[in-house]
């Protein structure tokens, strides 16, 4: 499609013979929230790391905003924001210092970085804790800081790798509302989560990964229609139907 902001073609990546990503292909339209679902070890995070130019693929092609992630990674890095699954924060710095630091790293001036940092902290409900040391924050607050950093520099494409994992319902809801707000502003988002209800409500399309492959890709409605009445079937039912009920490592 001409309006595809992200194009992924036949992506492969192995670690010591283990195929973490095995022929993944998909596209994301500009302004779309695209869900990448799958059990643990399905290859979601590896896919995001390749798209974020942190990891090089063994083969395949990634085009983001018209730039090749392998041939011109710097151009890609200038238009993306990454919220990793892990808390990638400096615990000895304050919330504001964390945001300003990463703001400077994405090329903002001192003034711009501070301005955006305060705006993002406000967005996350952490304005009053701006000068608090991150080490003393709760898990939910750290998650919100982790998310706020990804927004520094106003990226065109946001990678959200399980941004709401392991936090209290209030923080989770706050992040969820922010993603809705970003959707309304037309930001392109690649979103992974284990909360199927979130994916169902947020994502225009969803891809289900397992064993390094995409085993299904459609709108939430389309996926639910495959196994029953979309009004009665949940995305979790679809997920379990597609990936099975056996436990994963």
């Amino acid at each position, binding site marked *: 499609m001409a309006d595809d902001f992200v194009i992924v073609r036949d992506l492969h990546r192995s670690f010591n013979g283990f195929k973490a990503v095995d022929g993944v292909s998909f596209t994301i339209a500009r302004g779309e929230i695209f869900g990448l679902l799958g059990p643990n070890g399905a290859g979601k995070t590896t896919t995001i790391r390749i798209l974020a130019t942190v990891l090089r693929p063994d083969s395949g092609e990634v085009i983001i905003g018209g730039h090749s992630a392998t041939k011109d990674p710097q151009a890609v890095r200038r238009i993306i924001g990454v919220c990793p699954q*892990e808390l990638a924060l400096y615990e000895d710095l304050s919330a504001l210092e964390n945001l300003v630091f*990463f703001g*400077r790293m994405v090329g903002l001036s001192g003034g711009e970085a501070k301005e955006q940092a305060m705006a993002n902290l406000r967005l996350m409900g952490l304005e009053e804790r701006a000068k608090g040391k991150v080490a003393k924050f709760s898990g939910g607050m750290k998650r919100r800081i982790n998310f706020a950093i990804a927004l520094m520099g106003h990226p065109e494409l946001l990678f959200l790798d399980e941004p709401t994992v392991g936090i209290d319902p209030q923080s989770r809801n706050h992040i969820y509302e922010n993603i809705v707000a970003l959707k309304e502003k037309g930001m392109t988002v690649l979103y992974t989560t284990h909360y199927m209800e979130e994916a169902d409500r947020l994502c225009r399309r969803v891809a289900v990964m397992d064993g390094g492959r995409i085993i299904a890709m459609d709108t939430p409605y389309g996926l639910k229609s495959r196994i029953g009445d979309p009004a009665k079937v949940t995305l979790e039912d679809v997920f379990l139907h597609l990936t099975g009920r056996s436990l994963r490592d």
Partner: protein
Amino acid sequence: MQNMRHIWFLAAKDLTIFVRDRASLFFFIVFPFLFIILFNFLLRGVGSEDSRLELHFATREPEGGLSHLILAGMETKDESLLAPGEPKIVREKDYAAARLAVEGGKLGGFIAFPENFTRALASGEPLELEVFADAGRAELRTALGGVARSLAAELAANQVVIRASVALLTESGIIPADEPSIAAAVRQMMGKITPAGGGSSLISFKVEKVGEVKETNPSDYVVPGYLVMFVFFAAAVSAEMIVRERQNHTLERLLATSVGRSSILGGMFLGLVIKGLIQITIFWVVGILAFRVDLGHSPLGVVILSVLMVLLSSAFAVMLATLVRTQRSAASLAVITSLVLAPLGGCWWPSFLYPLWLQNIAKISPHAWATSGFNKLMLFGANLGDVVPEVVALACFAAIFAVVAIWRFRTSAV
């Protein structure tokens, strides 16, 4: 330009974190001085004065012989009256006991007068002084040999005078030609030569001062030794902080921004270098003001060696961080390498005291080159030109560590 800014932001971030960590500040700045104060105290007085040389004498002659008279005259009665550098003369009462003392290792050696000393002196028979010394005490043996030769020469000269005088006196009939009378006359003449009450005319000492002897300040080798050790140690331990950056996923986050790998590496290195420079500045300022450290004839040489030590330690830390996977292994390796290389390289005590083979082995460590350079400049009066080998060696260490670090960081996974 953008890269330089990134490098600076990264270094500034590391410094901010460092300054807020009170334990790190204590470890980097205060802790080394506790060691310096302790070792200054322990090494105080070492090398500050010369130990006085003791020369032991004995005689095999029976009581009443001239040698007894000479020894009584030579013996040091009051050590406090001796001039600086003048040896103490000790009279051994019993020749056999003195020999046993040497054989038992209790005495280094002594000079003995022969049994026929008085007769030989009067009659012109050959006079042989005996030097009995421990084979392992080469320096003392040499000293005793020298003293014995001087003594023999002086005695030989006196022997000629005494013989001529005795011959003249007997021929003129002033004294009888029998042995007791001649011995009495000789004793009288020798008594004039060796006045009782100390101060021997047979042995004289000339003390020449070559330059002013001043007390060695232990800080002149303790401060640079601990500077080398702690600059390296502090940097090496910081490798753990770099590994933490990887384990906390902040490194991955940085790599997803427009910051290049070279900038990240440069930022880490610059942060370490700035910390090291702060550390050496504090070391030298406190060393000069509080411990009265003398930088020698070439303060510039001291500065160059210090800066090189900071550069190579920082490069080592980055290299270490790229070689290990976990914070624990980084910390363990940092401690082990620091605690092995510091004493080997002469940080705890001067390496020039080591046997030659150990000094050669020590050259595998940058510490040895650094302390060697500092000792040359601060203890032995060397100039900058004299420490060129040390400067080159330290620069080579820094280059090797940096090359390995860059290669590993570029090729290793996040």
